């Protein structure tokens, strides 16, 4: 349920983000489009203003020309001198006027002193001009330069048709009316409906060589449909905007038809990138805003989730504290209850026995028995009080480890001495094995480790019935911590074991299994709790494996510091062959490995009989063992019997050593 709720929140946040981003992208695209339209509309407007200026300029020329036409219309076409004079009167710098008598083909120009007759080809050109208007740019017949000219037909006094024309160099018009945009990156042309460039801008980016606008557009690989639409719009005298590729970038073409010259358009060409550069700032700000909003949503969500998580943690911590307090209260009550019981019982015994001893003071045997019982109860009471004090010291942090360089051998010898009487009393088997222990001397708190092992062993003795076996194994492993050795102490018994549910509370204070067999065994229920606390204090770990009636194995793993001063390594043995016999496989393997480490070639036998046979065989090969080590107690042939067998069959005096692990007395 919680998981589903969590995913729902994540999905909601993602959905909100996706919505925000989608909306933002749509918004930015919309703004971008709007800005582009605004920019091209502005360019279109500027183009229209440029067109208006050119229209005004043309119209002014047309008006001047009309005045000349009106002036000449009252004259006689045959009066060349008058015509020439009037034409020359209108002459102004940079322009040229002519008057053509169309019927005769005679032309009067302000450049010549007299009229002359046009060639038929030239006359045909003028005859083709109707009414008035502006001629397409043409090469001036005299100067050879491109020229723009207004013309107007009129009628002389005698009805003869004449034509006046005012021309000016095209370059001058181009210079005066070429528009530029965006720091000269955009420019303009005047084109006709077929796209022929009539007036060319001289701005830096403008094309200088192509003669038709569609050469510019067509040759750049633009989509033909779009080009045709553009061509049609231009041909129909529409105003509009198109976007095409030119010289590997997008250009915007804004076109506006001229009013003074039908069929001509002013077209502005601006790189799209330049147009969008100005819009780019707004877009960038919008993008930043969008990102900020998205980041805000994320931050708010994170804050919400963090707040929710913190609140939950606080609630959980409060709950835990409440439970701990409750548990502590329960523990305190239980402790007091247990204490009252565990203290009162031996105290009652002491008081009762004291009274009995007083009552029967005349019976020394009985009094001695009572005193013995009083002593036992007193010791129990002292033990209990010691445990309580230990616990108190550990819990209050007053217990400090006192680590000194100590011999592991001495520790184990002391423990064996302490445990051996109890084991003997209960007729249990007791073995101590050292497996691959490299360092005999280590730095540790011997008192506390002794306490841990004694606690474990005393429990093992207590809960193992007579005839059972108790084994202590000590092994050394490489430690993760530098300068340390990991010692693993394993205390195994074949006792009554524990149930799984009790195992979980094994290390709790005053925990004792509710079992009829356990009830009869004395104990405060503090020993394992203290053991665990000491192991924890030492930075180690204690684990237990146990099954009811299958015994228990406690494993304590401790990282012990290596002593500051290493003892010199023992000299290895001289090259020698050793025969080792033990019926216990673990002991056999361990001892053989130890011998090999010392440099001896060790053969092993799993029984006394096997040892005898191997010794005899070696003798037969004339390769007697240098030393034979035998376990005393072995199934079948014992150590002593094996020695006898060897001595009987081998004349050589091979040294034989018998070891026993049982003779602790």
């Amino acid at each position, binding site marked *: 349920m919680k998981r589903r709720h969590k995913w729902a929140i994540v999905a909601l946040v993602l959905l909100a983000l996706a919505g925000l981003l989608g909306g933002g992208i749509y918004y930015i695209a919309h703004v971008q489009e709007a800005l582009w339209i605004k920019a091209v509309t502005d360019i279109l407007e500027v183009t229209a203003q440029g067109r208006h200026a050119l229209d005004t300029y043309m119209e002014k020329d047309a008006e001047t020309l009309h005045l000349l036409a009106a002036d000449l219309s009252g004259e006689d076409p045959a009066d060349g001198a008058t015509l020439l004079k009037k034409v020359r009167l209108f002459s102004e710098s940079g322009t040229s006027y002519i008057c053509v008598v169309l019927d005769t083909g005679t032309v009067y120009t302000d450049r010549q002193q007299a009229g002359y007759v046009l060639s038929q080809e030239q006359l045909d050109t003028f005859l083709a001009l109707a009414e008035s208007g502006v001629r397409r740019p043409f090469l001036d017949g*005299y*100067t*050879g330069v491109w020229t723009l000219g207004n013309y107007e037909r009129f009628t002389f006094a005698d009805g003869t048709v004449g034509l006046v024309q005012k021309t000016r160099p095209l370059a001058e018009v181009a210079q005066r009316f070429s528009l530029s945009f965006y720091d000269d990156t955009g420019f303009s042309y005047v084109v006709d409906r077929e796209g022929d460039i009539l007036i060319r801008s*001289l701005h830096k980016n403008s*094309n*200088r*060589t192509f*003669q038709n606008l569609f050469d510019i557009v067509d*040759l750049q690989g633009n989509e033909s449909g779009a080009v045709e639409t553009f061509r049609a719009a231009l041909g129909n005298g529409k105003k509009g905007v198109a976007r095409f590729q030119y010289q590997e970038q997008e250009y915007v073409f804004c076109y506006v038809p001229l009013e003074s010259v039908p069929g001509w358009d002013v077209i502005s060409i601006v790189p799209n990138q330049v147009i969008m550069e100005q819009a780019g700032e707004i877009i960038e700000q919008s993008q930043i805003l969008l990102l900020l909003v998205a980041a805000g949503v994320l931050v708010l969500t994170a804050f919400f989730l963090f707040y929710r998580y913190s609140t939950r943690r606080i609630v959980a911590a409060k709950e835990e504290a409440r439970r701990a307090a409750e548990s502590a209260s329960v523990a305190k009550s239980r402790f007091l209850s247990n204490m009252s019981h565990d203290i009162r019982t031996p105290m009652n015994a002491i008081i009762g026995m004291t009274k009995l001893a007083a009552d029967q003071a005349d019976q020394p045997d009985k009094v001695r028995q009572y005193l013995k019982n009083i002593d036992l109860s007193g010791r129990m009471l002292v033990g209990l009080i010691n445990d309580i004090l230990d616990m108190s010291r550990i819990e209050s942090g007053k217990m400090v480890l006192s680590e000194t360089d100590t011999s592991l051998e001495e520790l184990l010898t002391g423990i064996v001495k302490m445990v051996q009487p109890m084991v003997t009393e209960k007729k249990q088997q007791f073995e101590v094995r050292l497996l691959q222990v490299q360092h005999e001397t280590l730095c540790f708190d011997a008192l506390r480790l002794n306490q841990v092992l004694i606690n474990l062993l005393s429990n093992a003795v207590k809960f193992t019935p007579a005839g059972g076996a108790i084994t202590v194994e000590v092994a050394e492993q490489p430690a993760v911590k530098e300068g340390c050795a990991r010692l693993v102490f394993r205390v195994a018994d074949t006792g009554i074991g524990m149930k799984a549910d009790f195992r979980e509370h094994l290390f709790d204070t005053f925990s004792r299994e509710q079992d009829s067999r356990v009830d009869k065994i004395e104990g405060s229920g503090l020993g394992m709790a203290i053991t665990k606390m000491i192991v924890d204090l030492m930075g180690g770990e204690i684990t237990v494996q146990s099954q009811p009636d299958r015994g228990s194995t406690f494993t304590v793993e401790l990282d012990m510091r290596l002593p500051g001063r290493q003892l010199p390594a023992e000299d290895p043995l001289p090259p020698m062959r050793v025969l080792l016999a033990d019926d216990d496989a673990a002991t056999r393997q361990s001892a053989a490995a130890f011998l090999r480490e010392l440099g001896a070639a060790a053969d092993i036998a799993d029984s006394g009989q096997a040892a005898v046979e191997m010794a005899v065989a070696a003798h037969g090969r004339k390769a007697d063992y240098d030393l034979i080590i035998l376990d005393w107690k072995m199934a079948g042939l014992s150590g002593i019997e094996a020695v006898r067998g060897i001595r009987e069959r081998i004349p050589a005096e091979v040294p034989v050593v018998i070891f026993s692990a049982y003779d602790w007395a």
Partner: protein
Amino acid sequence: MRMGRRVWALLLLPALLLGVLSGCNESKNIVFEADTGAVQHQTDLTFFGYKYEALNVMAIEDALHGYMDDYPGVNIAYDGIKSPDYFSVLEKRLSTGNGDDIFMVDHERVLKLSGQGQLADLSDLSTLENFSDLARSQMAADGTIDYLPTSISAFGLYCNTTLLKKHGQKIPENLAELEAVCDYFVSQKIIPIVANNDISLKTVVLAKGLLPVYQSADPAARIARLSSGQDDLTQVLAPGFSLVEKMLRRGWIDADEALNTAKTKDDLALFAAGERPFMLTGVWAVPRLRELEPDFSFEVRPYPILDDGSVLVINIDTRVSVNADSPHVEKAKEFVEYLTQKDVMWEFVDSQCSFSPLKDNRLSEDQAIQSISPYLTNGRSVIGADDNLQLPIWDLARQCTVGMLQGDSAEQATARMQLLINQWRAQQTEVGTP
């Protein structure tokens, strides 16, 4: 009452804050200072040329913009008009003081304008040393450098390989084969050769007539004698006129059609229609032919008009001169220098399907023209308008072949040539030039 005021104040506060933050009531007066930076004086140059079609001018466009990028203070405009009108306009502009700063010239105009001192000396341009010996021998013919060529154009026989294959004919390798193929097509009622009214036939005349001169022991001496009139040029060209006469007489070329066929326009349209096996024109027309008919299959070969093979006509072409009267002579020369840089020039050469006039003599990479490549150096090429021949032979030959299209015989064409040469020399004597 007091509460009411607080509520109003609380309601108004956010609105006030919004107003202040959005600047809705802020008055503004932004004053833009005039640009006080140094005003860079801009030089306006104009470049006048006879390259005008979009395909041909792309390389020029790139060169102009490249130059302006390198020289930000210069703005250069280009004006292109188709030749031969171009040359009359050029002369009008120059004669009326409206001459452009840079312009293209041909052999005849170099002779004429150089004599009038209207061409600036370009001998100090750094790119001069990059030109091949052939190009330099032409440029320095009169001792000064009046122009720099930007290509070596070639003239060839365009062969419609599809049609030839269809009729089981092969591309001719010599005159006999040309005669056989042409006669075959005539017999099939197909006029085999598309010719224009300008360069098609005059190049045949020059190729046939001048090859022996270039193959002589001392071509320079022979040309000098022809130039000075010691040897008779008309007699040299006579075999060429005879060959043209034969071509017309045997129906390989339709004279009326040729008279009305403008070069690199009408002729291309006729040939691209695919019904004619051959066309005589400049190799530069290859891109235009491809644009006209992208799938058209053709090859360009040297003229197979010799008994023992073919001959290639070349011209030191697209000659660029600087107007000596230009107010910006130095800037104009800078542009010419830029234009004749190896990379810039190669773009132009490649677009013109020509040879580079630089030392590498590199030929444009179009596959259809690769067969002409060896002819530049194998001793089987003639220069159509050799600068060392101080006669406008290019134009005079055109006038003679136009006459032949109008009905002149070879003999009459030879006579016309003699007449035109005499007139030219007389004209030169009048203006005091050698």
